[in-house]
């Protein structure tokens, strides 16, 4: 709590000693976060190793995860580091296609969910949502001569006014929530890391 107050005050008051102290606390936070990442990787390996050893359902996927982890570590350590050609190959031909495929599946799923939404829940808000989504997508289509009746201007108006207003409202809410959460952490009433 004290470190949080020091860092918070350091944003508003410029004092030589206070600035150094705030920097020191931030350095500690960065180190702890890096260590937490290492601990997280170790815990992930431990959990999957337990699944493989006990033969639980999905042990094959756990074995795949452990194999990938070990292989990547070996490549990074013994084959030129994190940005070497081997590491880049793994990234380009393993990680990026897998994750991009997941996002591609998500696009198909969203289209299907939209169609099912009209069937299952046909309310006024669902209709507004569906109509707005369709309008934005259609007006984003860049067919030559497609811009009739000023549809792109309407799209820009919807994006600049309605969407921006909603986004700013979300940002204000997020800012207030961040302040409240920060104060709760500072006064010790909330311990997000179970400290």
């Amino acid at each position, binding site marked *: 709590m004290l470190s949080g107050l020091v*860092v918070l005050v350091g944003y508003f008051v410029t004092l030589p000693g206070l600035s150094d102290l705030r*920097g020191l606390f*931030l*350095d500690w*936070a*960065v180190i702890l*976060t*890096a260590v937490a*990442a290492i601990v997280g990787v170790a815990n992930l390996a431990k959990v999957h190793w337990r699944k493989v050893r006990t033969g639980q359902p999905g042990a094959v996927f756990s074995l795949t995860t452990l194999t990938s982890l070990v292989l990547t570590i070996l490549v990074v350590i013994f084959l030129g*580091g*994190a*940005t070497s050609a081997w*590491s*880049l190959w793994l*990234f*380009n031909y393993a*990680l*990026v296609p897998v*994750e*991009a495929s*997941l*996002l591609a599946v998500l*696009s*198909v*799923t969203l*289209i*299907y969910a*939209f*169609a*099912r*939404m*009209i*069937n*299952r829940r*046909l309310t006024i808000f669902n209709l507004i949502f*569906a109509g707005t*989504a*369709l309008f934005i*997508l*259609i007006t*984003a*289509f*860049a*067919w*030559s001569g497609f811009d009739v009746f000023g549809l792109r201007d309407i799209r820009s108006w919807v*994006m*600049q006014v309605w*969407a*921006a207003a*909603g*986004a*700013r409202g*979300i*940002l204000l809410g*997020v800012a207030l929530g961040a302040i409240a959460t920060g104060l709760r952490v500072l006064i010790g009433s909330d311990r997000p890391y179970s400290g």
Partner: protein
Amino acid sequence: MAEVRCPMCGKANPEELDVCQYCQARLKPIWESAPLESASDNDLPEWLRSLRSEPEAEKGKEEALPDWLSGLRDVSDVEAPLEADQPPGTADEFPQDQPDVSSQWFGSTFAPDEEPAEAGLGGQLEGDLSEESISWLSRIQETDARSGEPAPGSDEAGEEASQLSPPSFENEIPEWLKPDALAEQPPEQTDSAPQAQTPEWGASEEQALPEWLKDEMLQEPAEQHASPSQETPSPEWFDEDISPVQQLADETEAKQQAAQRELPDWMTDEEGHLPEWLQSGIFVSPLEQPPPPVSSSGGEPLPTPAEPEESELPAADAKLPFKMEEGEPSPLEWLASLETESEGSKSAKDLQIPPEIPEDELSWLSELETAYSDLLPEVDIASEGAGGLSEGFESEGLSPPPVEGLPSWLSETEPEGEEAPALADEEESLQPAELPSWLQAMRPLGVPDEPSGDAGAAETEQVEGAGPLAGLRGVLPAEPDVSQGTKPSAFPIRLQVTAAQEEQANLLRRLIEAEAQPRPLPKAPVLPAQFVLRLVMAVLLILSVLIGVVSGLPEFARPAPSSEILAVRQMIEHLAPQSPVLFAVDYEPSYSGEMDAVSGAVLGHLLRRNVYPVMISTVPTGPIQAERLLNMAGKAAGQSLAPTEQYANLGYLAGGAAALAAFAETPRAYFALDIQGGQLWNRPQLQNVGSVGEFAMVVVAVENPDRARFWVEQLSPRLKGTPLVMIVSAQAEPLIRPYYDAAPAQVQGLVSGLPGATAYEAATVQNGAASLYWTPFNIGLLVAVLLMFLGGVMNLIAGRIVRQKQRQETKSK
């Protein structure tokens, strides 16, 4: 050997013991030695009986007293607080625990255990009659002779009274009262007062006459002397007794109320009244009468305002056996008037004696009248009884209080005769309230209708049978009344419902029963319709995109660059060669399809401007993502980028927003080496960089709105004029655009999504990945919109059809 069980501890003791050998409690009641155990003792409450069990030390003292006097101790103890109002003279001379003589005289008559009906008094009259039995009369004569001496309130009177002790009292008997003198008296007087008929109480009084009784008797003439103006003075307490009937009735009521107020609650009944035996005792005790007013000078009693007139007093000196001077108050006048009053209230002959008292047991009363007829003025008792106080009571409608076991002429009147009928009439006039049925139905279960009034009476009547309180009455019960609640009445289980409610209940029961019946599950199709629909959608999307990628047709026009895109281009165009540009690659590999195209367009422009990009990322996969991006951009620019010389990759920055803030202030503290392990800050491009504000430009490529917000909020205060350009995905644009539209703007340039990247390439005359993706993107977008629309319409129609079928099936069932 017979055993006696201790009433306190309940243990057996030998019969000869007087005190319990275990708890030292008295085994034999003190009053057991009383001449007679009156039947009225049984009527006394238990607590009052226990009061008689006084310590042994007082027992001997009381044994000297006649029984009828000692019995008054109970009454006097109750009335002890009232004696504080006595005059100083009498208060000093009289013990606080002893009543005055009048109270003794009256109290003895009303003492429950000294009932004349017990025939004990009559028996004692025969044995105790002696010559000394009339010694008290001689003392009266002596006090008459001393009438000229100071009042009893003075010290001299007190000393003289103290000298009148019983042993010397006999020597001071006047001659006329001695047996010799009595023999010389006229025959009518000696005949009228035979010694054999001297009452026993007179004899016992002489033998053990207490001091207070003597003092009181001496005080009578003194008080008479204190008021010489009156020809027939009498004791004030007596004067008030023989005051007019109305005054007596009022005073009686006032005294009773005062006594009840001073008495504790346990002595009164539920209505706050005293028991009848106590009321009678209070009523007749002269202690209850207001004391005579005392003068402020010498404590001499002043004549009471209610002092009776001379005519109201009987002519006591008319038949006195001794000679008295004219104008002197007669010492026996109080006695005469007292007996006159007593007889006047009701003669023993005329009274209605309770049937439980035998007639022969009341013979002593007639004997008493005969014995003192010569000492008293010649008053026609019969006529006085008709015209005396009792007549006054009767004339006023008052009746003497009912004293059980006592002659009615001794009992006092109590003006309750009229109140009782009045209360009865009032109770009859009060009709019980009738509660409505619904209110009666709200009455809680298990609660009796009326609180049992007998509970308290039962408690008071209950006698403890065991334990140390054995034998005591009115002990608090160990079991509270709460545990003795009544059992709740039983109600029928059958519900009282209407026909409609019963029909609804049956309907609900049928529904539940139908749910409980097993139904065969429909066979799952090999290929569900939804799965087929999703598969068709995916195939259509993939085919449309592949067609666009392969053929490149149809060709779609590039969108026109917007102002934020033109601002980015303008800022990059103004960058000097080899100027350090911080380029953050903060997006996940899943967004590489979109973000690589957008970031590649901007990074390619930077590389063409020959700036020195410094790559950094807050995502673990960011460093290698940056390498991938540099390779793609280099290929697009026709360059082969060499690390250290043409760019620097700082690697992963752990810590999120906190690390961004720290890095913005002191970047050298976090990264001393690049990701390849080479020295970083000694490079000529980075020698002047000490903070994030000393970079020529900061470009952040991020797809996550929260992470984009972190960059903007943490870096903007520390940029010191360095432009911040955000390269975001289409989903993050709505949240980042407000920072660009703000005034002053926190973001100086914005490139969002594939349309933004295509527009930027068009503005910078590039043909990168964004231009390549533009046609498939548009085809895929069009197909997606069509699928959404058609799929929605189809599902809407299919849903309605299914619902109609379900309704038809439900109706058919």
